[in-house]
């Protein structure tokens, strides 16, 4: 991938609300070039979506998130792919990854409350064919999400002038 495209991706990952004009002045491209490159990255599926990092605890909607680990018997010819695709279709599954280690699949599941999450696991996930074992971990508090610190940090004080 071209260096300029990487630069654009890094800028957008940090703040996807910047206008093409703003990005253009930072990268020495024209706004039209920025737009063309971004469109190409969207078309290629590199850019999947523009989203927002929200501290849901502060927003106070009371949602519960949990990490669910699954041991899975892989399928001949397909490995973990088919079951992973099946699981990923559930609205409740926000993140799904194949892992090394004790477990195979790791899910991030959110629900309105604990009951909803546990019902989802016991009624939809655990009974699925090929799933041997599940372990559910409720997230108590999130300190950092995708590189963004969620707790309040003290501003470091700097002198108004220094040489």
């Amino acid at each position, binding site marked *: 991938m071209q260096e300029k495209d990487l*630069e654009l991706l*890094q*800028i957008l990952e940090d703040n996807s609300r910047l206008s093409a004009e*703003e990005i253009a*002045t*930072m*990268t*020495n491209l024209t706004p039209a070039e920025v737009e063309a490159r971004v469109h190409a990255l969207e078309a290629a599926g590199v850019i999947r979506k523009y989203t927002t990092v929200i501290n849901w605890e502060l927003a106070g909607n009371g949602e519960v998130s949990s990490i669910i680990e699954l041991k899975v018997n892989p399928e001949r010819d397909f490995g973990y792919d088919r079951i992973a695709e099946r699981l990923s279709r559930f609205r409740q599954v926000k993140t799904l990854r194949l892992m090394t280690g004790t477990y195979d699949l790791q899910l991030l599941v959110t629900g309105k409350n604990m009951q909803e999450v546990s019902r989802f696991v016991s009624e939809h996930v655990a009974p699925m064919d090929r799933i041997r074992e599940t372990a559910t971990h409720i997230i108590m508090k999130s300190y950092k999400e995708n590189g963004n610190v969620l707790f309040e940090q003290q501003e*470091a004080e*700097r*002198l*108004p*002038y*220094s*040489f």
Partner: protein
Amino acid sequence: MRNFISERAQNIPPSGIRKFFDLALTMEDVISLGVGEPDFRTPWNICESSIYSIEQGVTSYTPNKGLPVLRETLSNYLNQHYNLPYSGEDEILITSGVSEALDIAIRAIVDPGDEVLIAQPSYVSYAPCVTLAGGLPVPVECTEADRFKLNPEALQEKITRKTKAVMINFPNNPTGAVMNRKDLLAIADIIIDNDLLLISDEVYAELTYEGSHVAAATVSDLWQRTITLNGFSKAYAMTGWRVGYLCAPKELCEAVLKIHQYVMLCAPVMGQVGALEAIRSAEEDKNNMVQEYRLRRNMFVAGLNRIGLPTHIPEGAFYAFPSVKDTGMSDTEFAERLLTEHQVAVVPGSVFGVGGKNNLRCAYAVSRKQLTEALGRMESFLNSL
């Protein structure tokens, strides 16, 4: 009672910025572009390693020269990154920031009456340090027309029989100017032909945005007559840690060491431990910061030019140096009115010596949001004139 203040101390001019400093402290909602330090926090792995070492009781003096492992690691780093062959054993000295390195380097080489040429605009301590050592600071003006590089003819013109050394700082504070290999070659001949010493302060070396930094000591035969200064403050956002270093051929380094051992003994050990971690594993943090500075620079300099303050593109450091000549105001008047009427703090260029009287030093080591806000306020100010 007698006046106990020494003539030397009396003869040093007070800080050109004191008035602004006091003014800014009384004001609310000031956006400060007057700060010569990164707005980033020190990368956490550096802090963590220093905290751990304190917990482990690493709180004593170190050898005068600095921790051997730090000097050795630094020696390899300088070799790999800048092609600088300094031995960790006896050609590198760890100091309390580049400020100390600068002072003791000058004291080690200047005799009373010696003239030291200073490429200006320059960092504010150069001339006073020469004066304190009994020498005579002689400014050599770097002009906007030369994009604030040191012009070989201007340098040659100032050389007299008393000239002993030349001090340069590229990437430059306050102009952001950079000297590439060709530029350095042109001054190298003059320095060698006149048998001068070169003090090259390269503390902004890592903050080079076009191409890569060329260490002065690697140019022509300058190595044997060059003292290279560098430090961790700017590249790794470690200003408060006070760790810098001085590199020079053995004989020079030993002379400087004699002064260092009496005035400082050693640089703080916590800082040295942090510095070691910085070289070992903060490369990516550093690169991320440099990338962010680059984006801010592009955005901010384009903005300054757009609102009517002509600004050359600074190739290094984190300062823009716009010209206020077209406004008809002096740099000081502009800076004072910008602060009192629009709450943006910048440093008048004349504070940095000759060559800066029509310019302002604006540090872009603040967030993009603040830069945008500052540009807006500066534009309002210009429109109100």
